[in-house]
C-alpha cells in the first residue's frame, strides 16, 4: 500500500513545483500505469515511492509518502529496498557488478538472503526473463534491451512487495516487451506484487493496467481512474483507442482483441472501400542511390555482428530497420556513419567513404542520433548547445533553435541538458543533428521516451525532410512509428538481412511487427488510424 498525502515537490533553483498537492493511494496487488507528456513529472512521482526523491535529488518535498507504513522522509532508499524494487530509465547506469549473474544476486547479497535461496532465485529469474544464455556475459557487452531485462530481473530477485519501473519496455523489441509485461502481469496475479510503471508506449501496456494515473504536467492535478475511462478523455491514446474514436464506437477497446471484436461492422464496410493509399507509399527504387553498403562484415573484437550485408538506400526513402534486441541494428547504423570500420566490404555515402571524411563534411553528408542521445550534448545550456551547432556546421544563427522549437517547443533555453527529462534530451539531440540538414539521417531508437505529441512533431519534420530528397533510416522497435512513417522496411536477424521491401508488405506479413490497427482490421491492408480515416472518407464520397 502506497499513500501520498498532499505531496508537492520543488527542485532546487526552481520556483514552480514539479508536482503539486498530490494525494493518492495505490492499493496492494495493483498494476498501475503512469502516463503523461515528456517532462511532466512522471519520473519524480516514481522516485518518490522509494525515497530517491528527496534523498538523492535534493529539493523540498511537502506532505508525506508512506510505503507499507514506512515514511520515506525518515527511511532512505536502502531501508526501503526490501519493499520496493526500482528500475530506472537508463538501466545500464544502475549496474553495480560486471556480469549478469552477479548483478542478479547483488541486491540479495545486500539483503542477506541465504546462499542456497539466492542460487535458486537467480535460476528462477534467469528463466523468467529468458536470460539463461546471457548469464556469464559482461554487463557492458549487452544490447539495450538485454540490459533492460537484466535490470528488471535484478529488481525482482529480492521479491519486493512493490516494483517501480520507469519506461521498462521502451528499449525492447515487441516480442521481448510482451514477454516482460506478461511476466509482470503473472507476478501481479500470482504473488500480489504491486507494480507502478511509467510508459509512453501505451499500446503495449494499457491493456494490462488496473488503473491509470495521468500526470498532465506543470503542477496540474493528477487524474486517476480506470484505464478505459481515462483513455476516452486522454490526449495521449494508443491506436486502438484512436480507432474507436474515429469509428464512433461506444466502448473503448484497450487491446487488439477488444478492438477486433468490435470491428466486425467496420471491417465489412471498409472491405468495400477502394484502398489506394499505396500511391503515397511508392518505393523509390528509381531515384539515385545515396548510401551503398557492399558486402559489409563488421563486429567487435573477434565477434562478427553483421555478416555480409548488402544494401542500397535511395534518395527520399524512409527506411525502418527492425529486428530483435541485439540483432545488429545499432552496429549497422554506426558502420554507415563511419564509426566502425568493417572487417570486409565497403560503405559509400554519396560516393565517399564516411570514415575518411572530415567531421565538418560528415555532418552535411550523414547524421546519426545514437541510442544514448545525451552523448551528443556537451554545452552548459540548451541555448549554448544550439548556438554551438550553428557555429560548428556554419549555419545561419538560430537554425538549430528554430528546429528545436518545431520538435519540442516547451524546452526552456536556459536549462542544462543534463537536467532535461530523457525524452526532452532526445528531442534536443534530434534538433542538433537535424539542423545541418544532412542528406542521410540515421536515427537509433528516435522515439524512446517521447510522448505522442513530440512524436507527431518529429514525424512531421522527418516527412518534410524526405520530401526534400533526404534519406532517413530509423532503427526502431516502435512498429506504430514504422507503419506511419517508413516507405521501406528492413528486418535484421542475427546479423543478416532477412526481409527487405515495402513497409506495408513486410509488417503485415509478420504478426510480431504488425501495428495494432493492422492486427485489429486484418486482412485489410490498413496500418494506421489515418489510413482508416482515409478509407472511410473514400467510402463516403461516392454517396
Amino acid at each position, binding site marked *: 500500500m502506497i499513500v501520498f498525502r498532499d505531496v508537492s515537490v520543488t527542485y532546487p533553483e526552481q520556483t514552480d513545483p514539479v508536482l503539486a498537492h498530490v494525494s493518492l493511494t495505490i492499493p496492494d496487488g495493483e498494476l498501475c500505469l503512469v502516463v503523461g507528456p515528456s517532462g511532466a513529472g512522471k519520473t519524480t512521482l516514481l522516485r518518490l515511492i*522509494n525515497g*530517491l526523491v528527496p534523498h*538523492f535529488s535534493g529539493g523540498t518535498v511537502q506532505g508525506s509518502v508512506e510505503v507499507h507504513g514506512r515514511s520515506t522522509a525518515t527511511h*532512505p*532508499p*536502502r*531501508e*526501503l*529496498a*526490501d519493499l520496493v524494487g*526500482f528500475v*530506472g530509465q*537508463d538501466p545500464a*547506469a*544502475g*549496474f*553495480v*557488478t*560486471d556480469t549478469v*549473474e*552477479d548483478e542478479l544476486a*547483488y*541486491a*540479495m*547479497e*545486500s*539483503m*542477506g*538472503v*541465504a*546462499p542456497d535461496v*539466492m*542460487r535458486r532465485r537467480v535460476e528462477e529469474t534467469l528463466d523468467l526473463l529468458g536470460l539463461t*544464455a546471457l548469464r*556469464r*556475459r*559482461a554487463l557492458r*557487452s549487452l544490447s539495450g534491451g538485454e540490459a533492460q531485462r537484466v535490470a528488471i530481473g535484478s*529488481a525482482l530477485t*529480492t521479491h519486493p512487495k512493490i516494483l517501480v519501473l520507469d519506461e521498462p519496455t521502451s528499449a525492447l523489441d515487441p516480442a521481448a516487451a510482451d514477454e516482460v509485461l506478461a511476466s509482470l502481469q503473472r507476478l501481479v496475479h500470482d504473488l500480489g506484487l504491486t507494480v507502478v510503471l511509467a510508459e509512453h508506449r501505451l499500446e503495449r501496456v494499457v491493456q494490462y493496467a488496473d488503473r491509470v494515473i495521468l500526470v498532465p504536467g506543470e503542477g496540474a492535478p493528477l487524474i486517476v481512474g480506470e484505464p478505459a475511462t481515462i483513455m476516452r478523455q486522454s490526449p495521449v491514446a494508443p491506436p486502438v483507442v484512436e480507432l474507436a474514436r474515429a469509428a464512433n464506437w461506444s466502448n473503448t477497446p484497450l487491446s487488439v482483441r477488444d478492438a477486433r471484436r468490435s470491428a466486425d461492422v467496420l471491417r465489412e464496410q471498409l472491405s468495400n472501400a477502394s484502398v489506394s493509399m499505396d500511391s503515397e507509399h511508392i518505393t523509390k527504387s528509381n531515384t539515385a542511390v545515396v548510401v551503398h553498403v557492399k558486402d559489409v562484415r563488421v563486429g567487435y573484437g*573477434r*565477434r*562478427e555482428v553483421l555478416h555480409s550485408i548488402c544494401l542500397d538506400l535511395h534518395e527520399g526513402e524512409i527506411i525502418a530497420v527492425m529486428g530483435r534486441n541485439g540483432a545488429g541494428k545499432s552496429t549497422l547504423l554506426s558502420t554507415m*556513419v563511419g*564509426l566502425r570500420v568493417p572487417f570486409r566490404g565497403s560503405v559509400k555515402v554519396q560516393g565517399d567513404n564516411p570514415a575518411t571524411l572530415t*567531421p*565538418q563534411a*560528415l*555532418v552535411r553528408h550523414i547524421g546519426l542520433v*545514437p541510442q*544514448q542521445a545525451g*552523448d*551528443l550534448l*556537451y554545452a552548459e545550456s540548451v541555448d549554448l548547445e544550439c548556438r554551438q*551547432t550553428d557555429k*560548428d*556546421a556554419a549555419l545561419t544563427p538560430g537554425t538549430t533553435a528554430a528546429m528545436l522549437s518545431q520538435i519540442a517547443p516547451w524546452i526552456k533555453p536556459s536549462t542544462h541538458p*543534463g537536467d532535461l527529462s530523457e525524452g526532452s534530451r532526445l528531442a534536443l539531440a534530434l534538433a542538433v*543533428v537535424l539542423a*545541418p540538414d544532412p542528406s542521410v539521417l540515421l536515427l537509433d531508437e528516435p522515439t524512446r521516451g517521447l510522448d505522442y505529441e513530440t512524436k507527431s512533431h518529429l514525424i512531421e519534420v522527418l516527412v518534410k525532410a524526405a520530401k526534400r530528397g533526404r534519406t532517413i533510416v530509423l532503427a526502431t522497435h516502435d512498429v506504430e512509428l514504422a507503419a506511419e512513417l517508413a516507405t521501406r522496411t528492413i528486418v535484421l536477424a542475427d546479423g543478416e538481412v532477412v526481409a527487405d521491401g515495402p513497409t506495408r508488405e513486410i509488417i503485415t506479413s509478420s504478426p510480431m511487427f504488425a501495428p495494432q490497427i493492422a492486427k485489429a482490421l486484418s486482412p485489410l491492408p490498413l496500418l494506421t488510424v489515418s489510413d482508416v480515416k482515409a478509407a472511410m472518407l473514400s467510402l463516403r464520397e461516392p454517396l
Partner: protein
Amino acid sequence: MWALGLAAAASRTSNPLILLVIIAITALIVAFRAQHAPWARAYSSALVLAAIVVSIRVIFGLLVGLPLGTHELFSLPQLPVPDWAPGIRIGGSITIEQLLSALFDGMRLGTIIVCIGAANALSSPLRLLKSVPSAVYELGVAIVVAMSLVPTLISDIARVREARHLRGRSISGPSDVIGLIGPVLDGSLRRSLDLAAAMDSRGYGRTAGIDRKIRRVTNLLVVTALVALVLGIYGFLTGNSTSWVAPTMLIVGLATGVGGLILSGQRTARSRYRPDVWAIPEWSVSISGWLAAGSLWWVLAHNASALEPSFNPLSWPPLPLLVVAGLAVATIAALMTPPIPSDQSMPMREESSVNA
C-alpha cells in the same frame, strides 16, 4: 594476489634489468590468460600510463633536481633560485647519471602500475571483493568503484570523441582534447550519482536489523585497526621511527582488526552469492607471486648494492640470480595452474549465443 606480489617486488628495486623482466612476465601471463572482457583492456592502458609516468619522471628529474655525476650530455640555461631553496636548481647541465637515475626511478613506479594493470586484466577487481571480510566490505566497494573509474573514463573519452565527430568537430590539437575533459568529468559525476542512487535503492549499506551498538563498535575497531596498521607498516618500511613504535602499532592493528572481523562476522546483514573457492591452484599462484617478492627482500637484506644500480662510477647493473629464480617460479606457477573456470566458459558461451 600474484600480480600484487610482483608489484611489491618491483617497489623494492630500481634495477632496470629486474624491472624489465617483471614487465615481460606480466605481458606473457596476460597474453596467455586474459579474458575477452571489457576489463581485459586494462593492461594496455596500464602500459600507456606507465610510459607517461616514466617520461614525466625523466623530464622532472632532468629539469629540477640535484646535480649529480660528471658525464655531461648537454646543458640548459639555468634559472636563478632564491636563497631559501638551496640544493634545488632548475635547468643547468644534464648528465647521464641524472638521466639514468630518473629513468630507473620512473621505471620502478611504471612497473608497479603495469603489475596492477595486469591484475586488472587477469580478473575483475569485483572478484577480489568476494574474498574481502564483511567488516570492510562497504569500504571495499567504494574503493573498487573508484578503481573502475579509470577504464570507464577511458571508454567515456572514446564515446565523447565519437559524439564530437558526429557533431562535426574534429579533435586534433591539444586544446580540443582539453575541451573533452569537461563533458567527460561532468558525465562521470552524473553517472556516479546515478550509480549511488541505484546501489542505495538496492539496499547497499543497509543497517536494518543490526544492533546499533555492535555496528558502532565494529566501525571503531576497523578504523583503529587501519590507522594502527598504516602507522606500523610505515614505521617498518622507513625504519625511521623508534624501535618499539612500529611493532606495537602492528600488533595493536592486527588485534583490533581481528576483533572487528569476528564481531562483524556475527552480523547477518549480508550474504554472498557463489563465493570463490580458494583452493590449491589459487594458493600456489599467489604464494609464487609473493615468493618473487620474498626473494628480492632476501637479496636486499644481504646484498643491497645489487638492487640499486650505482651511478658513481657508471656501470652495467648486475642481475642477481636468486631474484631471477624467484621470478621464474612465479611465472611457471602462474602458467601451470589451470585457468579459472569462468575463463574457459566465457568465449564458449559467447560463441553459442551467437550461433543460437
